């Protein structure tokens, strides 16, 4: 493939890209542009699709809305709570599973199961686990003399409950990705490190971590983006409410409320746009950090 692109080859290339591109443009790109524009509608007749006035009113409005601020805060807490723990846990489990252990395939399946199970089913199970009177979790906590906690009804515990479930749910996917990354690290480096006198821990910090860094980087970007977009878990776990007293109100949930419940299309678009900017900034920050610490072969 040393040929230079010609008009003919470019055209042929586009032809292959067309089917996927068409779908992406219609269902992703066009709506993104429309919602971006919509966030600037200040006076809008949505029955006749006539915009009377553009402006920044929506941006001013949502930042003055205490619910939106709560949503931002909750989303931030959620990301902070889920992402680091999930990465550490899944990396740890992946390293264990990567060892030559018996039934490794069985455990891999077990850990991957939550990921393929529907969020609604998972949430039903977890709302039972979290049940304040009959829940499994409170039952275990009872062994240690801890009084029953109203996980889903106490505003102080709703967010932790959501975080725990989300970590558990996301674990499988991350483990699989980490396992793939671990299996890409050649056995010879470990043998060489052994001969060079590196203990198991030294081998982990000096070989596994640096050579796994592209995977860690990938998983952390995906996890953060997914964390900011959290919605289904909230909706399903709290039966279509954003938790008690908005304690689990996330940005996407806020968008959903504005769009489907209050028909405030402008505000919903604005919130979506703000979320997009936040995710964009975080991704840029990660790319900058990644360039310094991530080693690519």
């Amino acid at each position, binding site marked *: 493939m040393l040929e230079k692109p010609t008009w003919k080859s470019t055209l042929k290339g586009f032809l292959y890209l067309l089917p996927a591109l068409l779908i992406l443009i219609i269902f992703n790109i066009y709506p993104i542009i429309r919602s971006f524009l919509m966030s600037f509608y200040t006076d809008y007749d949505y029955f006749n699709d006539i915009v009377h006035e553009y402006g920044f009113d929506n941006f001013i409005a949502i930042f003055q809305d205490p619910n939106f601020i709560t949503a931002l805060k909750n989303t931030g807490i959620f990301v902070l709570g889920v992402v680091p723990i999930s990465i550490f846990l899944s990396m740890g489990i992946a390293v264990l599973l990567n060892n030559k252990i018996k039934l490794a395939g069985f455990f891999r399946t077990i850990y991957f199961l939550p990921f393929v199970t529907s969020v609604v089913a998972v949430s039903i199970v977890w709302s039972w686990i979290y049940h304040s009177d009959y829940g499994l979790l409170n039952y275990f906590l009872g062994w240690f003399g801890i009084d029953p906690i109203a996980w889903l009804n106490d505003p102080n515990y709703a967010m932790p409950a959501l975080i725990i479930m989300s970590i558990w749910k996301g674990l499988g996917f991350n483990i699989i990705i980490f396992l793939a990354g671990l299996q890409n690290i*050649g056995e010879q*480096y470990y043998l*060489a490190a052994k*001969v060079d006198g590196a203990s198991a821990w030294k081998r982990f910090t000096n070989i596994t971590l640096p050579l796994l860094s592209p995977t860690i980087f990938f998983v952390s970007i995906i996890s953060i983006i997914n964390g900011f977009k959290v919605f289904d878990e909230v909706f399903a776990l709290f039966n279509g409410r954003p938790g008690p007293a908005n304690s689990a109100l996330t940005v996407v949930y806020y968008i959903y409320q504005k769009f489907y419940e209050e028909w405030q299309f402008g505000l919903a678009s604005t919130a979506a746009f703000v979320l997009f900017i936040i995710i964009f900034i975080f991704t840029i920050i990660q790319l900058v950090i990644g360039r310094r610490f991530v080693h690519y072969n």
Partner: protein
Amino acid sequence: MDIRLNNLTMVFDDITAVDQITTTIKDGELVSLLGPSGCGKSTTLMLLSGLYKPTSGQIFFGDQDVTKMDAEKRGIGMVFQNYALYPHLSVLKNIMFPLKMKKVPKKEAMERAKEMAELVQIGHLLDRKPGQLSGGQQQRVAIARALVKKPNVLLLDEPLSNLDARLRLEMREEIRRIQQEVGITAVFVTHDQEEALSISDRVMLMKSGVIQQESRPQEMYKRPENEFVASFLGNPPINLLTMKKIENGYQLEKSAHSLLFSNLATYPKSIRVGIRPEDFFVTKDNPRFTGEIIHIETIGRDTLIRMQIGDTTIRALVDPVHQLKVGATCGLDGKEENIHFFDSASGQRIETVERGEKHA
């Protein structure tokens, strides 16, 4: 420090990779483990390194029994076939790695690493990453990394097999030079006989997990102890002719050729006679072998002919001064001391005795 192997055995599932090896590698010696693939030479090296633990038997470094000691603690240097340089570390950091693991102060570690880099002549490449080096340079880094911690033993696992032919020649001389400069005991695994014969003090030829012969390179070539050793060494390979005992000598199978050997230690029913192609010469004066030339090829300074005797084809490297033609009949002979005899049943060498001595 001598390395002693005592009845060393390694069994993988149901395959015996190394079978009861007992030998000693002397201090400062460069020993080659030579053999076809799957003969157990690499396994033996892995056992020496401690990366594998033997099924039975012992390994001694000097007086110390290291059989159960982990690779981390054996104090060995190893060069892997694919070099296994840490891809995320610079050349300098790669060489410093073993010292870092030993908690040598950073300044000292850096000095020692640089010294070692000079020894292997890569002082100008210290800031590069392994991916930016050529095969030969990576090889040098791997040697420097193996030697920097001043190990007792240097183990080399087919270190030249990933290099191109010319570089291989250069690097094997380099390995020899470095080994002698440092004065380290080295064990070198290879499947390439030329490599083994050219650089080692001693060669151990292995097959099916058993050492077939261990001796100095020339001796192994001149006096193979069994048929396998004879056939493994030499290129083009040795001619092995199966001969059956007849009344007063041996007869080549399916031919009228019979030969009289009166100086063998024993006379089994069937023997294999080995003569290296270069040990033949063309003669008209009562040659041992006569046959039709079926092929002639000239490669550089050598002329290789193939001659048909009955069902047997023999190869001979002959002097180009003889004007030979395909289809012509030709006589070949070899000096008595260059003819090897093996018992067909056991494959073992049959010694020759001085003429007359036998019946004395």
